[in-house]
């Protein structure tokens, strides 16, 4: 979790941008913008930050690949061809073959299913869990707050890899347990952030207004507080996904995550490690894939942050 805290500090700093034009006198010379709808916001982001636009495209492309994997490759996921082991990239096998004669490109495509889904789904789940718990802690306070935050503290105190390893040990290996592990690991930081946002929003006028006309607590939470946490949470999501992808690949790399014959990028890297010196592509290709995925989500998150956060601050 310390890596995440680091990222938080860095992102916080980067986005407190001072007025680019200089002294306040000059800033008055500029137009005041109109209020922007979500659609306009997205368009502006893509216009200003070409990198996030490209990243979004890359992500969508990758997701497309995972869905269309069977169509995109003539080989099956686990088709072995022992006569053709460890072949370098060629016309038949665009990315070569691995130690079992399996086509690397195929494994990459099928592996993307695991690696990407493991990045996205558990992060989403931990977002939901963390947001709910965090908002509850912030809104209801007292015992709920103490209990939930202590739990979050415990989860956050563990070094992330070790926590993942311990949970995997307890639950056993396999895909489902990886999902569960990642979900359980990440809800803590989400909860912390959701809680501080809630505390801030609790004092705002529209919440007071809603309370004064007798709106029930849960309705306030769902109608007012959660929607206002949304921009921060969306950005957090795009920044947590790469962390999840990295964790899964690290776990699989250590042999504690996805087990063979399944495919995941991390696992491919691990298995390719033995052949690092005669068949380096076996490890480097999936590593590169991981890096591209991580970069894309990071850029997307940065772009979203640029566009969503300044608005938040003004409010």
């Amino acid at each position: 979790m310390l890596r995440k805290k680091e990222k938080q500090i860095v992102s916080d700093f980067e986005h407190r941008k001072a007025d680019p034009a200089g002294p306040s006198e000059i800033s008055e010379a500029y137009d005041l913008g109109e209020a922007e709808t979500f659609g306009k916001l997205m368009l502006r982001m893509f216009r200003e930050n070409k990198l996030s636009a490209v990243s979004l495209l890359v992500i969508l492309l990758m997701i497309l690949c995972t869905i269309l994997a069977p169509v995109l490759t003539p080989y099956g996921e686990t088709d072995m061809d022992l006569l053709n082991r460890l072949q370098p990239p060629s016309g038949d096998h665009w990315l070569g073959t691995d130690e079992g004669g399996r086509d690397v490109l195929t494994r990459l495509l099928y592996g993307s299913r695991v690696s990407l889904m493991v990045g996205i789904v558990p992060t989403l789940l931990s977002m939901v869990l963390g947001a709910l718990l965090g908002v509850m802690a912030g809104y209801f306070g007292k015992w709920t707050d103490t209990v939930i935050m202590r739990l979050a503290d415990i989860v956050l105190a563990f070094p992330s890899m070790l926590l993942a390893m311990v949970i995997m040990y307890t639950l056993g290996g396999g895909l489902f347990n990886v999902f569960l592990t990642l979900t359980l690991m990440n809800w803590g930081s989400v909860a912390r952030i959701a809680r501080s946002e809630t505390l801030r929003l609790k004092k705002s006028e529209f919440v007071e207004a809603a309370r004064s006309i007798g709106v029930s607590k849960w309705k306030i939470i769902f109608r007012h507080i959660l929607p206002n946490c949304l921009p921060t949470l969306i950005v957090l999501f795009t920044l947590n996904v790469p962390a999840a992808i990295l964790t899964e690949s690290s776990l699989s790399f250590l042999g504690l995550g996805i087990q063979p014959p399944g495919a995941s990028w991390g696992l491919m890297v691990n298995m390719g490690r033995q052949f690092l010196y005669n068949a380096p592509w076996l490890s480097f290709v999936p590593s590169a894939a991981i890096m591209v995925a991580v970069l894309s989500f990071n850029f997307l998150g940065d772009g979203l942050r640029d566009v969503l956060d300044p608005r938040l601050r003004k409010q």
Partner: protein
Amino acid sequence: MKRIVQALLVLLLVSLMLFVMLRIVPGNPVAVLMGEHANQATIDRLTAELGLDQPIHVQFFRYLSGAVRGDFGTSYSLGKPVSELMGTAFVNTLLLSLAAALFAWITGGLCGLLAAIRKNSIPDRLFMGFSLLGISMPVFMVAMILQYVFAYWLHWVPISGTADWRSFILPAVALGWNSAGSIARLVRSALLDTLEEDYIDTARAKGLGKSGVLFRHALRNTMLPTVTMMALQLSALLSGAVITETVFSINGIGRLAVQAITARDIPLLQGTVLFSTAIVIFGNLVADFLYTVLDPRTRKEA
């Protein structure tokens, strides 16, 4: 003071949770260790010897009282006391972490500094590009590329192990790569922010030149968040660089933990994880404390 108490409480809860989690795994670890052919009597005897037949809260209490005295039990798979194993392992981890931290802070700091000074120019974009690579490349990727290029191909350094100081170079770089990226970005942002502040104007109005402004005013303020992050990074590094140690076969805490898991060695796993978590908790405290020391605004008035 209150924070120290809180931290200790968290540590206690952590050890409890760890304890419980490791024991709810079905199956008797002794049986697993002994294999299929052991007879029941031996299993039962060993179980009693290791105290594993006691109710769980008793076990926990015994563990705690041992831990406080420095006794973390004996490793199932390696036979030696856990504390001894951790001791030797920690030395390696410490050396590795310090090397990685130095690399990260010096390279990262310089990159961030130079990038901020020449904002929006080519060096800036280059350095920031590097830092981006730093934080997005998975550790094993960096580690393996380094191994391949510098050890295997160029033969400049040994591939793995802890033979001499040279074998620490690659792992230090691999481990520090990520932190360097973070530091670079932070320093750049913080410095740019600081340079926008009013007191920089005052300094320039006094007649200070660029370097005077930078070194005497801007940097001091930039160091505040930077040092906090450095403290956090160091504790992250110390708490076990699992992957780096595995790739480079360095006998450190992280690798020990992995071995423990593979061997289902509960005391060892418990010891290593608890130790690492304690370091993290302690690191957070230090980071908080450092901030108070460095920023006079946060000190309570006498």
